[in-house]
Every structure is written in C-alpha cells, then in structure tokens.
C-alpha cells in the first residue's frame, strides 16, 4: 500500500526532524547560557564530572545540614515560590541550611545550594532570603560553579577530585568551593536573572538590594564571619542595579506565606 509507505515516510521525516532538534538541544553546550559555552565534548565530560562531584559534595553537606522539619518546611516554601520562575538546572536543585555564624550562601557544582544560618539571621524578611536564593539558583542554572572551579583548578584536577572517594578530599574541595567566588560578569548575570525571577513571582526586586545592603552593613563589625561580601564582588554596584530594576518594576508584591520572625528565631544565636 503506497499510502502506508507515505505515512511511514511522513512519520519518519517528523521523527528525524524531532530527533535532530531534541539531539541538538540536549547536547548543545550553550543552551543554558551561551556566554559560558564550551565544546560539546568538554561539556559532556563536565556534566559527568559534575554528577560525580554532586554525589561527593552531597554526602559531605548532608551530614552538616540542619535536619529540623520546621526549617526544611520553611525553606521549601521559599524555594517553591521562586523555583517556578527559575531556569532549568542540570540536576534537581537542593538547598541545605548549615547552622553556622557564617554570613554566606553558596552554589556548589551539581546544583546544590548552601545557605548558612548566619545569613538567614541577618535577613529581615522571607523575601530577602528568597532574593539570595534566586541569585544562587541563577548561578546553578547558568552552570557557574563548574566554570568557576574549572577556571581555578583546571579540568584535570577536577577529574582527579571527582574520581576520589575519601571524605577528607571532599571536605577540602568543599572548603575551596565555599571560599572561592564567581567572576564579576557571572555575578551581574546572576543578579539580572534573580531580579527577573523575583519579579516573575510577584516579589519586589528591591528584596535583592535590601539583602545585599544588609550584608554590607554588617561587614564592619563581623568581618570574621562574613564571607558573602568577599565572595560576591562589587556589592555597591549590584545594589544600585537591583534598585534600578525595582524602580522600573510595575508589579504588585505578594508576600511569602511564612512567619519570618518565628522561622528566623529557630536558629541558635551564635553571633
């Protein structure tokens, strides 16, 4: 039957076009962020290595993370609000709260985000914490952590690290990652994406400038524990940019459904 042959030809043609588009999309190294594109083979190695690092780092982080159900629930609510507007990440996004006086939030390879309780205590609203999270999620969806690590250590060193099994190695890698920062351009892009995410979910982008200002204010008295400013450069310029976005924002702010004072008070007073 010729009609069946033509039907098979049509379906084959559609399958071929579909497979080509999906194939190119999947393997195209820059579909998340063209600015940080690498060759396809590099990207494949990078993705596999990132997967190994994720396992290594996740194991290391989980043991230190706050396990209190009310903290996990509170973070889930904030994360849930903003993640709907965030770009895709290579791995399921995971946010861990670390009980420590350190004022910092970090995006690790494998789309793991660490938020220190010191930072949560500094924030005056759930929206401010959401802004910090949106910024870190933007780093995750841009794949910045792997690029930063690669820039710092080189791919060969990362591959060696990812192949390792020892906990000591994972601890050293984690320390290195926490203390290292992103480039100015990566920070600007993450801020731009964070303000977009916030605006999309009815949070005033001013939450980002407020959170940055709060971290800058505590710098003088708490330099020993404040890592955020040192790992996130150009804080003044970033505040101004976020303020400009907020001024142009025409949306109506909708608060996050969480008792912020109660949530914040759950963390020990360590500082």
């Amino acid at each position, binding site marked *: 039957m010729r009609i069946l042959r033509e039907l098979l030809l049509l379906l084959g043609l559609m399958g071929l076009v579909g497979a080509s588009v999906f194939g190119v999309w999947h393997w195209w190294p820059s579909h998340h962020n063209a600015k940080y594109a690498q060759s396809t083979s590099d990207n494949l190695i990078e993705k596999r290595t990132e997967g190994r690092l994720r396992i290594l780092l996740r194991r290391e982080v989980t043991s230190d993370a706050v396990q209190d159900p009310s903290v996990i629930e509170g973070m889930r609510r904030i994360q849930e609000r903003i*993640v709907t507007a965030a770009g895709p990440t290579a791995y399921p996004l995971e946010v861990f709260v670390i009980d420590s006086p350190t004022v910092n939030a970090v995006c690790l390879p494998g789309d793991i985000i660490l938020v220190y309780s010191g930072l949560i205590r500094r924030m005056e609203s759930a929206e401010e914490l959401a802004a910090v999270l949106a910024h870190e999620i933007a780093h995750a969806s841009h794949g910045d952590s792997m690029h930063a690590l690669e820039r710092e250590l080189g791919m060969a060193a990362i591959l060696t690290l990812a192949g390792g099994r020892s906990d000591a190695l994972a601890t050293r890698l984690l320390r290195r990652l926490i203390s290292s920062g992103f480039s100015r351009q990566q920070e600007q892009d993450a801020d731009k994406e964070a303000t977009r995410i916030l605006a999309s979910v009815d949070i005033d982008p001013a939450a980002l400038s407020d959170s940055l200002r709060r971290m800058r204010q505590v710098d003088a008295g708490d330099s020993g524990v404040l890592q955020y400013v040192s790992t996130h450069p150009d804080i003044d310029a970033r505040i101004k940019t976020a303020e400009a976005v907020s001024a142009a924002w025409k949306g109506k702010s909708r608060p996050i459904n969480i008792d912020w004072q109660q949530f914040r008070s759950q963390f020990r007073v360590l500082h």
Partner: protein
Amino acid sequence: MNSSIVLPQPDEVPKREKEDAMAAYLMNFAAWGAGLPLPSLNLIAAALYYFANRRKSRFVAFHCFQAFSSQLPTTVLNVIAVGTFIDFQIILDKPLPSFFWPYVIFAVFMNVLYLGVSIYACVLAAKGRVYYFLVFGRWAYAKYYGPNAMPLEGNAPRPNLPPAGF
C-alpha cells in the same frame, strides 16, 4: 471503469473553481494568525470551508479536503505545545518541563515546513493544477477521484496526473 470521473486539466478547470481551491489553502493561512493561541481554530475553519465547498466540484472538494486533512499533524503538534504550556504555567503553576522548548522548536519547524508546502499547493491550485501532499494527497485523491479517474483523452499536455500507483 467509471469513465464519468475525470481528472481535469488546468485549462478545463473554471476560473471560479481555481479560486475556490486556492482559497482552501489561503483559509489556513488566514486562520493561522487567529489560531495561534487556540491551535484547533484553523482546523475548525478549514473543516467549515471544506463542508461549505465540497459539493461545488471534485477539483474544489479535493483541494478543500487536502487542505483540511493535511492540517491534522501540525494541529496535534500545536495543541500539545499550547496544552503543555497552559497545563504547567497556568493550571499547575509549575516550571515548564525540560522537553518543552526543544518541542516548540520542532513544532515551529514542522509548521514552517507545512506552510511552505501549502503555499506551493495554493499556487498550483490557482493554476488549476493538483499537488499531492504526503499521505493526505493520496487520501484526498482516493476520496474524490478514485482509481478509476482518468485524465481526458487527447494530445494536449496533461500536467494533472493521478498520484503514482493509481
């Protein structure tokens, strides 16, 4: 053999029928713009046009049926794209699945391909010619001319021929 069913040649098709046949494809393009948010709208418009014109002549009915039925694959693709978007973004309020954007690119590519073929068929219909789409051309031919349809006898050139195999 039913000799009363003939596949007309361009000079045997009245001007009005050529215009009606051409309009079947133009109808698709016109409904496309309006149908973008509701992708089934252009299929409904084409179906209405087909049912309104199918009794005019075999030539018109053939083109109307081909224009209508050939929209089915792209309509299904478009409905899935719009349906997924509405489902995830409006009903579930969740981020779009990872396959969504490559799927949209695929659907757009298929739509553009279909648009090109439709324009070609539209131009030929305006000249009184037939053009057979994959599957749907053969289906429309079988429905309105069938295996017994013959081109008129004579020495004149006959650009309109049955699809291969008929």
